[in-house]
């Protein structure tokens, strides 16, 4: 295990940034946000960022192709570019887990080359949580905030930051920084992990009921009368889906720039009334169906297709951000609680 004194962390960040693009959470007046590193930026110690880390691999807006139209003729221009290498420094365990959730969608055949390109060029340095929030419930999905995955796992303990490489990419990163790092044992880390786990144990939502959400109960959950009550206050905005690290629905749209057509994809939300709107039909015609779709997808559909892996990582962003404070925790309690 490698480590660096927190007071030397700026030098480490500088060194990474000198090598490749570096993104890290920094504190802003509206909370922590990921941003491209600039000299002097310091790592936010906030539990989590407003926006999730999915933006790095699945940005909100992304050009897919361009078209030149002249008369009846069309020319397709491939606008894809090889992404530069980059490091995400300080992602939390939940966000790191979300990458796995996204991978199973975007890297499934046929692979999404836009996503894959970014994923391949990234190195994720995951930082263990030390001060989780009341909205955190990653443990409900079996995620250990004290033991984040990623290419490198990192911990803060006793005034130092500790690093453990998990992958080849992680090894490469750390070895490039070896001049700044010291070899240390993991004793302090183990203590920090324990502390984190103790706090996790006190969180009000740490044990949300998950055992009921089995594929075989799909129709039972689908037809649960509770959806009506749960969904009735939903205003149909896309906040939960846009702050969610695992929501990956998208829309493909064309934009006429005046000099050609740009085809881009952008985040879409299953909560939007026009999400499934067709020319003459709308299969999910009220907010109930749309609301149900989102939570069924996270809790039942996605696990059914992915060996039981839930589509939620318990980051708690939707709990903090939903305009009406309706969220997956309340849904899980209502649906999966003792009936």
């Amino acid at each position, binding site marked *: 295990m490698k480590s660096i004194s927190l007071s030397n962390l700026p030098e480490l960040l500088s060194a990474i940034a000198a090598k490749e693009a570096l993104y890290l959470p920094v504190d802003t007046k509206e909370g922590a946000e990921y941003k491209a590193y600039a000299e002097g930026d310091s790592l936010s110690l906030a539990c989590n960022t407003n926006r999730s880390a999915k933006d790095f691999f699945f940005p909100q807006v992304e050009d897919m192709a361009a078209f030149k139209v*002249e*008369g009846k003729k069309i020319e397709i221009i491939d606008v894809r570019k090889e992404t530069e290498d980059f490091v995400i420094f300080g992602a939390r365990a939940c966000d790191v887990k979300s990458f796995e959730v996204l991978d199973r969608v975007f890297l499934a055949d046929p692979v999404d080359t836009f996503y894959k390109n970014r994923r391949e060029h990234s190195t994720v340095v995951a930082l263990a949580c030390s001060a989780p929030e009341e909205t955190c419930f990653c443990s409900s999905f079996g995620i250990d905030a004290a033991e984040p995955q990623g290419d490198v796992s990192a911990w803060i303990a006793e005034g130092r930051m500790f690093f453990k490489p998990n992958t080849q990419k992680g090894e490469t990163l750390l070895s490039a920084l070896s001049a700044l790092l010291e070899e240390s044992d993991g004793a302090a880390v183990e203590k920090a992990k324990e502390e984190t786990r103790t706090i996790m144990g006190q969180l009000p939502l740490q044990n949300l009921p998950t055992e009921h959400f089995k594929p075989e109960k799909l129709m039972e959950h689908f037809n649960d009368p509770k959806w009506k009550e749960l969904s009735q206050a939903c205003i149909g905005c896309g906040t939960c889906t846009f702050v969610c690290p695992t929501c990956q629905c998208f829309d493909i749209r064309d934009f006429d720039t*005046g000099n050609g057509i740009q085809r881009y994809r952008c985040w879409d939300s299953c909560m939007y009334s026009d999400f499934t*709107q067709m020319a003459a039909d709308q299969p999910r015609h009220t907010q109930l169906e749309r609301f149900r779709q989102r939570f069924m997808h996270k809790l039942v559909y996605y696990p059914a297709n992915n060996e039981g892996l839930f589509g939620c990582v318990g980051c708690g962003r939707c709990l903090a951000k939903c305009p009406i404070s309706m969220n997956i925790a309340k849904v899980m309690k209502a649906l999966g609680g003792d009936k």
Partner: protein
Amino acid sequence: MQRIGVFVCWCGSNIAATVDVKAVAEALGKEPGVVYFEDYQYMCSEEGQNKIKNAIRDYKLTGAVICSCSPRMHENTFRKAAAAAGINSFMVEIANIREQCSWIHKDKVSATEKAIILGRAAIAKVHLNAPLTAGESPVVKRALVIGGGIAGIQTALDIADAGFEVDIVEKKPTIGGKMSQIDKTFPTLDCAACILTPKMVDVAQNEKIRIFSYSEVDAVKGFVGNFKVSIRRKARFVDEVKCTGCGLCTEKCPQKKVPNEFNLGLDQRRAIYIPFAQAVPKVATIDADYCTMLKTGKCGVCSKVCAAGAIDYKQKDTFVEEEYGAIVVATGFNPIELKKYDEFAYSQSPDVITSLEFERITNAAGPTGGTLLRPSDGTHPKKIVFVQCVGSREDGGGCGKTYCSKICCMYTAKHAMLTREKYPDTEVYVFYIDVRTPGKSFDEFYRRAVEEYGVHYVKGMVGKVSPENGKLMVRASDLIEGKQLNIDADLVVLAAAIEPDQSARPLATMLTASMDTNDFFTEAHPKLRPVESPTAGIFLSGCCQGPKDIPETVAQASACAAKVIGLLAKDKLTCNACVAHSSEMLCNGCSTCEKVCPYGAISYEEKEFRMPDRTTRVRRVASVNPAVCQGCGACTVACPSGAMDLHGFSNRQIMAEVDAICK
């Protein structure tokens, strides 16, 4: 995808000299949807139009873009041509590359480039054009004439003569207007009353004409062919039907001190009165401002003497609701208020009078019985000074008008001539800036005044008139002699500028008819549609449109009647095709659009809809009456949901033009 043809006009060298028309045609030929392009010397010519028609047929065009002069010139020409070739006329768009391109630019490169962009914008618009059909609305075969002066009388008579019903609304107790106050008319010097009063009688006797005297238009709703007008019949406290016009009451009324407006306050009348002997309708009216009975409840003389029992002190204003197909505005003029013209001492001396007052003084039915006497002391004036252009042709900023009142030169010549003829011992001076006498026999008339009657015409302006010892000291300059003149006049007559009647502005608002800054009604076209207002169904007769003399007024009145008859002769009217329309599924029913519609064209209804969520819902939605909508588009911007849009100028069409221009 439209199949668009592009036709670039050279307009001789008007366009071709500054814009490379061939390059424009070729560049536009590459635009999406353009399947045909050509350029030609004169697209608006028979041959040019044939080229368009042929191309539409041969290339199965669905739309056409004409790069030519302003659409205000030939849009209709090209639309008709397109329609003749079988496509909807609204599938044609004009790119204005003459007035807004070739004529304002000198550099051929940039002008050509701009012409291409303008063409592109038109093409972009045509892509989104849809065939439009104008709706139809029925026509109420009755006209309303507002104002009962000679203009209104002539228009009403002509319309009635064609067999249509006409109502005249006159705010005064009698029709007749200004002409009834005039003594003689130039240049023939026949007596105004002699030619006017028979016409007034004709009006009274015409079965097709109703006169609402002592009435005003209170509210106007509706639109061309279907106006709904509310007329306020002011209480005259005399039953019009019962009153025989015997005039006994007007002799017996004890209240004698009422300024007589017919004689411009130069004498007095009673509180109950008939304005003048030949009044139509010949019915008495009680002046509520002066009647002792109405003010104090004590008197009742008129009621006692009226054998017909026509007096009704309890009479109230009543309202008549009537429908009309057309409305004629004939609200006439007034001389301007001269109080502000201190330099002419109008307020200081009763012997400084206006020309209209002069008319009354010389009129046999006037306050002096037709003898020219000074209002102050009743003596014969020996020296009279006429001042022209009082309040006319002034620079902006003064209290007068910038325009020429047009009639003053002639009536002043008339006054001067008549004075000299009747009272040869009187010296007459006329001060003028210019003497304007274009008109049949006008200049001869003026020359007679100077040459035969010895009127002193002095080019120059009067600087000051000051009353001194019963005389009026007139200080003036003679611009030709280059000297200062001092005249001790007995009487000074001011040719006051004329202005539209005060009632015109509120009326214009009711009619949604536009006015110029001087409150004259604007014509639909200053040259080609001089008797119509831009607001459909509103016609203009007489001085409400601009200063005119009697023959001109009568000519315009008849022209106006012809236009009205043309309208009333139709059973149905074709409406504006470029009207607003509301998408019911998008409409929120918020009523915002309704509030900004100047025509009341938008109404709301509750309708049942099948909603996207598969429920049925009763919703309040807007609907536009296409017969009423004039297509301004105010509602389209007021509408937050985008439900309201305008045919022919839709959001998408305009944005497509924006896109094409900014590209």
